[in-house]
């Protein structure tokens, strides 16, 4: 058994003192208040590390996944499709084509002789069967090697089928998950621009000129309708009097994506993923964008106020917004207050995909009286880490692209009560007898908006106050010996 003693892990004055951190990783760990040098993020993961990061394909897949009336065909051997089948809680109010896992399932012969024909045949058959409104073809590692001309196949099938067929250049090795976001944004932009150029799109109940702006309208970018979050947020904007043209890509539909160019403002939620698209749309159609978060009370309120402020031409929007926020917060507070009683002073560790999410989590946890003792992200940039540094109290550990060893080392050291991260972090937290909250895309419960905050608080509360932690060896102070006195025992 390889064990790293918790005591040995006690941080020296510099967080890099422990032998267990790879030399190359030293600059990706920062201990607020102790270290003076800067965190080194946006590096590729080190070969041989067991990173929590995924690949380019993963990035593209998560962004485009919720478009429910599109066909998503993964071009490659079966693995990439198998491991991503129906794993995300992105809900649809209508079609559910996104929940199917389609793959060209390349075999040895295909690899030798090329997969273009198989791809074309697969596409044609699937489009015929499922009548999607568009098709995305995800290129996986091997496609980049065997050199299939996916662009050509897509063009071909688009001509035949009359629907947009868009290649997504998501070969796993061609960068990081962020590059996958970019590839997805490219595909999305192509789709939007097709709509823009065609101008034949009929937006329901509004002027028929396809290129004309829709007044008081926005797109929501980087919101994936996990557990119905899109619906919650849409409802807020509706109550404010703001028209949501398109959500990318929560409860997404090709038709609405294609009309995104008609919105007045892009509201970008997921820090890493969709900013690139917002910038592209700004350049192409002059649509400005703002970055927001819908997680936590403050951030949600800010997100709504920011949008309201944008529409200076309609003062009533701000009035409605104020009313909405007040109403929602009042409903929320008693419940939160009750849970805060149990949670005050409890310690949390955060490790999430994007740094922006980390900001919101820190604020939300503080709202519950909790202390953040560790925070890290897979894809934060320098700017993000600067902000994190500012937000955190001295003694907080800040990590970029951490591996399980590091995560475990610091959560033990910081004696966290709960770990907030993605599904891959769960077993680490649990093995160490620490509560866990999934703040990633596989959860099924909405955590966005005001009601999401209540769900989040409830989940944190449920797990932090569970009695099972009393039994874990780390807490019970014994490995597996049994020394509980016998109650009611006679002589």
């Amino acid at each position, binding site marked *: 058994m390889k064990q790293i003693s*918790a005591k040995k*892990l006690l941080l020296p004055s510099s967080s890099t003192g422990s032998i267990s951190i790879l030399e190359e990783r030293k600059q990706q760990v920062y201990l607020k208040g102790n270290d003076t040098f800067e965190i080194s993020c946006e590096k590729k993961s080190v070969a041989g590390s067991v990173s929590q990061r995924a690949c380019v394909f993963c990035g593209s897949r998560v962004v485009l996944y919720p478009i429910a009336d599109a066909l998503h065909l993964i071009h490659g051997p079966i693995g990439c499709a198998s491991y991503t089948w129906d794993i995300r809680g992105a809900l649809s109010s209508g079609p559910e084509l996104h929940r199917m896992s389609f793959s060209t399932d390349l075999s040895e012969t295909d690899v030798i002789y090329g997969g273009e024909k198989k791809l074309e045949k697969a596409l044609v058959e699937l489009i015929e*069967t499922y009548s999607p409104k568009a098709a995305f073809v995800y290129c996986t590692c091997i496609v980049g090697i065997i050199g299939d001309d996916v662009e050509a196949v897509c063009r071909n099938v688009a001509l035949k089928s009359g629907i947009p067929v868009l290649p997504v250049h998501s070969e796993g*090795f061609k960068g990081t998950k962020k590059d996958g976001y970019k590839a997805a944004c490219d595909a999305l932009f192509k789709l939007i621009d097709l709509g823009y150029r065609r101008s034949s799109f009929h937006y329901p109940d509004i002027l028929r000129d396809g290129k004309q702006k829709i007044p008081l309208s926005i797109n929501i970018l980087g919101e994936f309708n996990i557990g119905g979050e899109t619906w919650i947020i849409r409802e807020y904007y509706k109550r404010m009097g703001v028209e949501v043209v398109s959500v990318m890509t929560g409860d997404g539909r090709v038709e609405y994506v294609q009309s995104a160019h008609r919105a007045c403002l892009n509201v970008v939620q997921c820090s890493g993923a969709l900013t690139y698209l917002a910038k592209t749309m700004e350049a192409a159609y002059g649509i400005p964008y703002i970055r927001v978060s819908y997680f936590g009370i403050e951030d949600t309120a800010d997100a709504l106020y920011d949008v309201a402020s944008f529409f200076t031409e309609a003062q009533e929007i701000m009035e409605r917004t104020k009313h909405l926020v007040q109403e929602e917060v009042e409903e929320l507070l008693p419940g939160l207050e009750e849970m805060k009683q149990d949670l005050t002073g409890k310690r949390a560790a955060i490790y999430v995909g994007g740094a922006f999410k980390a900001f919101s989590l820190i604020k939300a946890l503080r709202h519950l009286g909790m202390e953040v003792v560790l925070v890290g992200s897979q894809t934060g940039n320098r700017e993000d880490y600067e902000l994190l540094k500012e937000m955190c109290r001295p003694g907080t550990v800040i990590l970029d692209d951490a591996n399980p060893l590091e995560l475990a080392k610091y959560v033990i050291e910081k004696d966290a009560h709960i770990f907030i991260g993605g599904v891959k972090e769960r077993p680490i937290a649990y093995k160490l007898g620490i509560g866990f909250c999934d703040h990633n895309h596989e959860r099924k419960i909405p955590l966005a908006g005001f009601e999401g905050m209540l769900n989040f608080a409830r989940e944190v509360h449920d797990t932090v106050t569970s009695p099972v932690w009393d039994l874990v060896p780390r807490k019970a102070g014994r490995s597996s010996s049994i020394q509980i006195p016998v109650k009611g025992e006679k002589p």
Partner: protein
Amino acid sequence: MRENRPYTATRNACKMCTPLGAALAFHGIEGTIPLLHGSQGCSTYMRRYLISHFKEPVDIASSNFSEETAIFGGGANLKTAIQNIARQYNPEMIGIATTCLSETIGDDVDMIIESMGDIMKETALVHVSTPSYSGTHVDGFHHAVRAVVDQYNPSGVKNRKNSRARKKINLFPGMLSNEDLRHLKAIFKDINTELALLPDYSERLEGPSWMEYQSIQHGGTPIKEIQKMHRATGSIEFGTILAASVERGNGSAGSLLESRFNIPLASMGIPIGVKATDRFFSLLEKMTLKMIPKKYKEQRGRLIDAYVDGNKYVSKKRAIVYGEEDFVAAMAGFLAEIGIIPVLCASGGKSGLFIESLRSILPENIFKQVSIHQGMDFTDMEEHARTLMPDLAIGNSKGYTMTRHLDIPLVRVGFPIHDRVGGFRTLHIGYKGAQQLFDTIVNTLLQKRQDASEVGYSYM
């Protein structure tokens, strides 16, 4: 071959890719870290997939290909990866499995490994070729086991078998659950016979909570046991398809030991059900010359009595069975034994040996009622099942969507179980495994009937 897939694309696959099986097998060896030579995503996805089943940390390292690596070859990355793993985990072995990417660009992994011989004194490097476009996770699993046995039992090694030695059996169980593996170990303990079980992830992937972080969890087949495999009394390998594949000239760990060291190999299907378990115990009796302990006879007695008590609830019921070919074959044999007709036996695997295996396992009157499909995905399965009026489905969690559409209950067995807890604790094999399967199947049918009834009697 009854296979009429109308679709070129695979729609909701009933299989995983080759390296996943290898990574799982490597987890069953003490002190071993699996390393996927390829993109970072592969290891992350597979870890996630395995974690969702085992609810345990599953560390799989990656050589993290970049665009340059793909162009200039993965040698440098692989070396760095190996060195970093060695430094961070200090493992006894690194199990290196190639992905489609590194296979396609043609990295000569064996050569790269060899070139590291000098600097990797404490860590063994074992390579298995697992291009994901060839075969399924099952193949990756068996190949990894064979590669390990091969490396630790080279041709030159002396076969120090002597007649005084205690009986010792090699057992290659294939992809069983943790509880299955524990059951096998308990049986050997009860008959007081040494067992080399490879792989054995039962402890590593179902351990207690920790006091402190463990970079490599406890457990797994000790490498020194693997090194002694060529001195065993005999080997047992589970899997009728595996056996048939060996007969066709494909190697397995057991056949390698047989041809290289003349260790007798006995192959049989996974021991699910009374008859298959009888076969297993009978085999053990012959190989070890030990009597079956009373405990197992009692389990058998109770089991058959339970079969009788429940015969009417299962007789002529119609089941869909899917998953790995060997698992489906064994499960179909069990179903036939209790009177359920496995109307559809399906697998994403494509060994070409599935029908023959089922023919050898099932009685003729049952066999002729079974629709058998290799290389099948869940969407085809669902469409096909609609014509077969099934009463229930038996297989892994991935069939849930199908059974929901078909409005039939799903008895969750095998791998993966992603929507329930404790799937890795399911006992499938032995009399006790059959007992639990039988009770679960009967109660699932009873629940269906009771809940669907307008009246819902609380008496059967």
